[in-house]
Structures are given as structure tokens and as C-alpha cells.
């Protein structure tokens, strides 16, 4: 398809001048949303995996871990959702998914990927809830 379009071009509309293309590029770059703000984790120096691995594979780690936890009763392992929430809950909202700037929502909104973890799971670490209760 693409090669056909390329072949048709010389006979079609006259090529737009270079400055117009540059202007169009500028317009696009100003309308594209900037990279999402990612809050730094509250505690801990480094994540359980390096950043690139976590960006690409966190959902696979979580899915694997959840079966081990629910069916096997293995808790507190390396890739637990509670572990994520413990470190990444926002200092301001105390949650990973309450405000649009909170850790999980920030990226997921940018990538337009709906996440339903928090339909069931708490978005706050246990210590924050204990603080609220007191």
C-alpha cells in the first residue's frame, strides 16, 4: 500500500514547500503531550528491576506473582503489587491511582491503557490506612 502511494505522488498534487512542512512539524510537536510526570518513589533507593525492564514487563511480573500469591499463598515476594504501592504511593495523595499525577495513572493515562487493578486492590499502602484510622 505504502509503495503504491509513493509511486502515485509525482503525478498527484504538487509537493508542498519545505517551510510549510517545517511549520506542520512544529505544530505537531507543540500539540503532542509531554512525557508524563513520574513521581519519585517515596522510599527505597532502587526498584526491584531496572527501569527499562519495569516499564516493559511490570504487568508480566505482576501477573506471574498474583497466581503464586492467590493459589500458592506465597506473599511478600519480589514482584508484589503491595510492594509497588508501598514505595510509589504519592506523598501528596498517599495513593498510586487517585490523582492524575499519581504514579500508575500518570503513565497509564499517557499510554491510554486502562488498568482495572484498583477496582479491587487498595491504592494505598497499609501504613497510610493505619494512619488514617488513627
Amino acid at each position, binding site marked *: 500500500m505504502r509503495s503504491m502511494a509513493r509511486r502515485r505522488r509525482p503525478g498527484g498534487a504538487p509537493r508542498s514547500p519545505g517551510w510549510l512542512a517545517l511549520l506542520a512539524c512544529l505544530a505537531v510537536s507543540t500539540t503532542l503531550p509531554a512525557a508524563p510526570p513520574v513521581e519519585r518513589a517515596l522510599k527505597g533507593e532502587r526498584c526491584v528491576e531496572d527501569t527499562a525492564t519495569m516499564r516493559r514487563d511490570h504487568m508480566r511480573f505482576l501477573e506471574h506473582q*498474583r*497466581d*503464586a500469591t*492467590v*493459589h*500458592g*499463598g*506465597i*506473599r*511478600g*515476594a519480589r514482584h508484589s503489587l*503491595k510492594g509497588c*504501592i508501598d514505595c510509589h504511593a504519592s506523598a501528596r495523595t498517599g495513593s498510586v491511582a487517585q490523582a492524575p499525577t499519581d504514579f500508575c495513572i500518570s503513565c497509564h493515562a499517557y499510554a491510554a491503557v486502562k488498568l482495572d487493578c484498583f*477496582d*479491587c*486492590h*487498595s491504592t*494505598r*499502602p*497499609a501504613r497510610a*490506612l493505619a494512619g488514617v484510622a488513627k
Partner: protein
Amino acid sequence: MSRRAVLGAAVAALAGVALAPGIRLIEVARAADGADGAGGAAGPAAGKGADPKVRWGLLIDTTRCAEGCTACVDACNAENGLGTPSRPTDARWIRKVEIRELRTGRQASVPVMCQHCAEPPCVDVCPTGASFKRADGIVLVDRHSCIGCRYCMMACPYKARSFVHEPLHDQKPDVPRGKGCVESCTLCVHRIDRGEKLTACAEACSAAGHGAILFGDLNDPGSEISRRVREVRSRQLRADLNLDPGVRYEGL
């Protein structure tokens, strides 16, 4: 060296690998697991997972359960973030059932929760495998694969399961729950996995001064619950169904 001596040495070497007659490496590994996992009645250490040697259960003494007392129900609601049920469709993991014998007029109050059957009908009927029994005998719902069809609710002879009809908020971090899933008593599985040996209901019942609920490992002959079950007559509800529930009742 003669041929016979070489063969003899080979056999001796093989015997060394097999350790001793009847003992295989796998058994040694399991024994080591049990030793450092503080397995058995102590519950699985963090990260070890459900222990297949354990069968968790409850023994409920109906002669000590007080009529009108809802300590266990309230503790369960608080522990698992169920809130106070107001509508008939709200989730209830423990129901207090008041019974009265017609001839004698004897009354008893019986808390009924998931009976954690050895042969759970809810697991048999589940079309997605969401309803399952853990290695240590606890019957649970994996909400990740529950589609909310509610077959398990119909299959359960104890009416132990509830369906969540409305979106939920502020769940407990240890007890994720959500709309569209079936749920029931988990024997406080999050506590057991932490190594605790008391469910919220048993704890509250003792705190209220009744001590009617005893939690423990039915497979460990040295545990309090095993001793009581051995010494005192107790019954399983609907024993005729041969489901072998892990919850037993005394004085019914």
C-alpha cells in the same frame, strides 16, 4: 583388580547416591524445607506458601456461643473491610443462625461461614477454575478469573458465598474485593500466610469472653483443635453430603 571387585565398587557408589534404602533425595529436601520453614502448625513462613501437610479448620462450640452476640461477625466485617451490611444482598462471610429444637425448646446460636470442604462443590461447578482449594485446605475465589456467574453460590449447601453487586471503595490492602465477583470466608488467609495462628472471628470470640471458636491445624495431632476433635463429640454440617468440611460444630 578383578571384574568382580570393579562391579562391587560401582554398586557401592550407586548406593551412596541413593543415600540409604528407601530414602530418596526428594525426601531429604522436603525434610529440610519443613525444618527451616518452621512448617506444620506454625504456618508457612513468609514466601513459603501454603503447606500441603496442613489442613486448617475451625471447631465451634455452640454451647458457648452466646445468642445475640455478633462479635465474630463484626470482627470479620472489620478485618476484611466488608462494612456493616444493610441490604439483603450485601456480602456476609459469617451468618449467625439461631436454631431451636421443637421438642425440647433448646436454643442455640451457630455462626455459619464457608465450611472449607475437602470436596468442595463450589470448586466442582466453577466454569473458569476461579473457585479453588489451596494446598492447606482453604477454599478461595481467585477474583482474577471469577466471571461472577454465581454457580458456586447455588452449589454451596451452606449459603456461604456472597456476590458483590456494587462498586467498592477503600478496600483493605490485604483483602482485595470488587464488583462482579463471588466471595466468602477466607479463614483469614492473609493472617495465616503471615504466620499468625488466629482468625479474626476466633480472636474476637475469645476477647468477648466466649471462646467458642477454635482455629487450628486438623492434621497436626498435637494441636489444640485436633485434641478437642479427638476427645469431644463434634459434627460437620450436612455430613450426609460427604463434603468433609473443615469446620466442625460441638454441641449441636
